């Protein structure tokens, strides 16, 4: 399915949307298509809103952001996010990383909450009343709890999948598996479509099974400026450049006009940036296979 069709069919105004990936495998291609289709009132959930949600916030897609660390990794601030929050134009719901991971774990297991040892002595429960506590029926001790997160739609970028949606990921896994299982609808975006036989040759690498996937979109370089281990490196220069772009609302508008609204899709996005693929393409460093015989 094309990204345009997948977003048109499965992402709706007012949805709770998750585009996960911890630094690795962040589907910017999906975010840009959501911006182009002008989705509104979205509740955007991610551990790290990152540039992807900074762009969606600037484009007016977001009503609320649920997160645990909102910065530009190794660079500084997410300025569109900061302007919206400091101007109280955006609702936020804030956890720590462990809290967000636990919310996805509960959602994936279809439990209403998840227990964790956390938050004692912090002001986070004061800032977020959804962080509660439960008493252990064995020891009597109090444990923190977070509520399950069950998105309407989760979009996962991955290295490869077959046509049915059996999806394999290596390198950093983040919470991609939990977010997908927690979600009502799942869109998988891959660097490469492979034959089912490739998936079946190494079943331990499968992270998401076809039976929970609604759409498979093939979008090479769809994670740029994030990265895909074994395919292309992270575009650290762009993350640094975002500091200046996002600081100036006008510059941010120009960026969206040129690289999001101004292109039809990922292919055109790449054509606009000659030399990008050459600069970031991954070197080959293959591991050996293992024996599945008996």
């Amino acid at each position, binding site marked *: 399915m094309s990204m345009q069709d997948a977003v048109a069919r499965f992402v709706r105004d007012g949805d709770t949307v998750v585009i996960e990936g*911890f*630094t*690795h495998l962040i589907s910017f291609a999906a975010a840009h298509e959501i911006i182009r289709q002008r989705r509104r009132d979205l509740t955007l959930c991610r*551990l*790290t809103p990152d540039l992807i949600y900074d762009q969606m916030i600037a484009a007016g897609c977001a009503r609320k952001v649920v*997160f*645990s*660390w*909102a*910065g530009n*990794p*190794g660079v500084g*601030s997410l300025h569109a*996010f*900061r302007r919206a*929050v*400091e101007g*109280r134009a955006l609702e936020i719901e*804030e*956890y*720590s*990383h*462990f*809290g967000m*991971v*636990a919310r*996805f*774990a509960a959602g994936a297991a279809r439990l209403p909450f998840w227990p*964790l*040892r*956390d*938050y*004692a*002595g*912090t*002001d*986070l429960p*004061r*800032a977020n009343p959804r962080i509660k506590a439960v008493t252990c029926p064995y020891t009597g001790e109090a444990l923190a709890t977070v509520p399950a997160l069950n998105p309407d739609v989760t979009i996962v970028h991955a290295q490869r999948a077959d046509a049915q949606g059996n999806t394999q990921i*290596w*390198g*950093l*896994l*983040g*919470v991609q*598996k*939990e977010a997908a299982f927690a979600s009502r609808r799942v869109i998988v975006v891959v660097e490469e479509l492979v034959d089912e036989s490739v998936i079946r040759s190494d079943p331990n690498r499968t992270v998401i099974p076809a039976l929970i996937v609604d759409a498979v979109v093939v979008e090479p370089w769809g994670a740029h400026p994030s*990265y895909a*281990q074994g395919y292309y*490196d*992270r575009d*650290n220069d762009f*993350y640094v450049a975002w500091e200046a772009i996002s600081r100036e609302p006008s510059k941010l508008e120009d960026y969206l006009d040129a690289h999001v609204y101004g292109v039809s899709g990922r292919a055109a996005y790449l054509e606009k940036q000659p030399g990008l693929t050459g600069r970031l393409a*991954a070197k080959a*460093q293959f591991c050996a296979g293992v024996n599945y015989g008996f």
Partner: protein
Amino acid sequence: MMAIVAARELRDGEVVFVGIGLPNLACNLARRTHAPHLVLIYESGAVGAVPERLPVSIGDPALVTGSLMVCGMADVFQLFLQNGRIEVGFLGGAQVDRFGNINTTVIGPYERPKVRLPGSGGAAEIAIHARRTLIISKLSPRAFPERVDFVTSPGQHVAKVITDKGVLERDETNGEMVLAQLYPGVDASDVKASVGWELSSRPHLDRVDPPSQVDLQLLRDVLDPKRLYLKS
């Protein structure tokens, strides 16, 4: 200098939860000098990483290639951190107070922030579960207030605060952070003037040894040749 002092705090074989920037420099310096068996764990899921380049982000692909294990983040927080396997955790923050509490969330009231900071990330649980936390932060009265505006990470496990002028450590009698070590050429009054509370000192103040040539050469020529994190 802060990276070098931080490196000296690490013992060989320890399991360290590493952050990006100076903590990463400190760990890799220690790994190349007195602590070759340090196990570096990044919250992104890379265990025993041996980055061939200085990682710009906590999820840099260089942390994955050649690491001993890569696991999902549910495992990082439940099986490593909450399980109690982490000996040292590094933290930094916009504000550090008298009791080692850290604020990386907001300056001003939470509901009407003057400055919105990134938030906790893993800092809340690192402060709670790492046996010993080390803070690296530059001194200034604004950065070291009597009380932080928001407690993102509680200070109870903070062993030391490594600053650009000296090292504070916990006074076990009252739990307060007190001046313990001074860098070469720094006077105790410089430090006290840069802290927003009445900073006490150890009866005897140690002098931090100046950085060795080996340390400086490693940092400048090998670990951070592009000066991403080193200022001098």
